[in-house]
């Protein structure tokens, strides 16, 4: 992990197109401003990991589970 020290209002640039600026330091939290190209997503890490995990579980749902669910839904609709 690269360690850099920044003061308030200073920035970091990643590659040619991503920059992170420290906008506010207050107590034990920091407000960051992030600029990145449209194709790069930026998320709070714990949120990203939770959603990635859920997406991964969803991508592993087998076809027949959805077929079973489909049957249940059809029955309920009647």
């Amino acid at each position, binding site marked *: 992990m690269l360690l850099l020290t920044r003061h308030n209002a200073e920035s970091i640039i990643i590659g040619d197109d991503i920059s992170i600026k420290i906008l506010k330091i207050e107590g034990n939290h920091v407000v960051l401003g992030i600029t990145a190209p449209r194709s790069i997503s930026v998320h709070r890490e714990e949120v990203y990991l939770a959603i990635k995990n*859920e997406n991964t579980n*969803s991508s592993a749902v087998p076809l027949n589970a959805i*077929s079973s669910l489909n049957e249940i839904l059809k029955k309920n609709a009647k």
Partner: protein
Amino acid sequence: MARKSQPNNVEVKLRTDRFGEIITRKENIIEFPEGIIGFSTYHQYVIVPHDGSNSLLYWLQSIDEPNLAFPITSPTLFKSDFKLDLSPDDQSKLKINEKTEIQVLTILSIPSGQPQFMTLNLQAPIVMNCNERLAKQIILSGPDYPLQFKVALNALANQA
């Protein structure tokens, strides 16, 4: 009526693990500039109904990876009061204005072998700009948008 330009009508053949070879039109391809969260290298998908034209359940099938598909549905089918809260940043990324036709989809999950316990990911729904065929998995926060919304299957909100 606008003349459809030739390239979008072109038929595209896709290899998929779940459905074998499917044929769709280029205009049905949906572009995800950021990909799906955790799957950032895949940007192009098509929506495949699970069960013919009256299907309530669909799959978001990757064009580039035959094995990758997410089961999806419309959140309002299962939670009639689901309201989308689109941030200005997401609106801009999706090129959405008041005239844009949008569609909201949610990825569902099923605990192993128990379809009756399906959940919907309301925290990270997919918003699509239908005019541009552009989409993004957005992140919502707050108690109205749980990651695993438990669906009461016997209380199906309404039939599309």
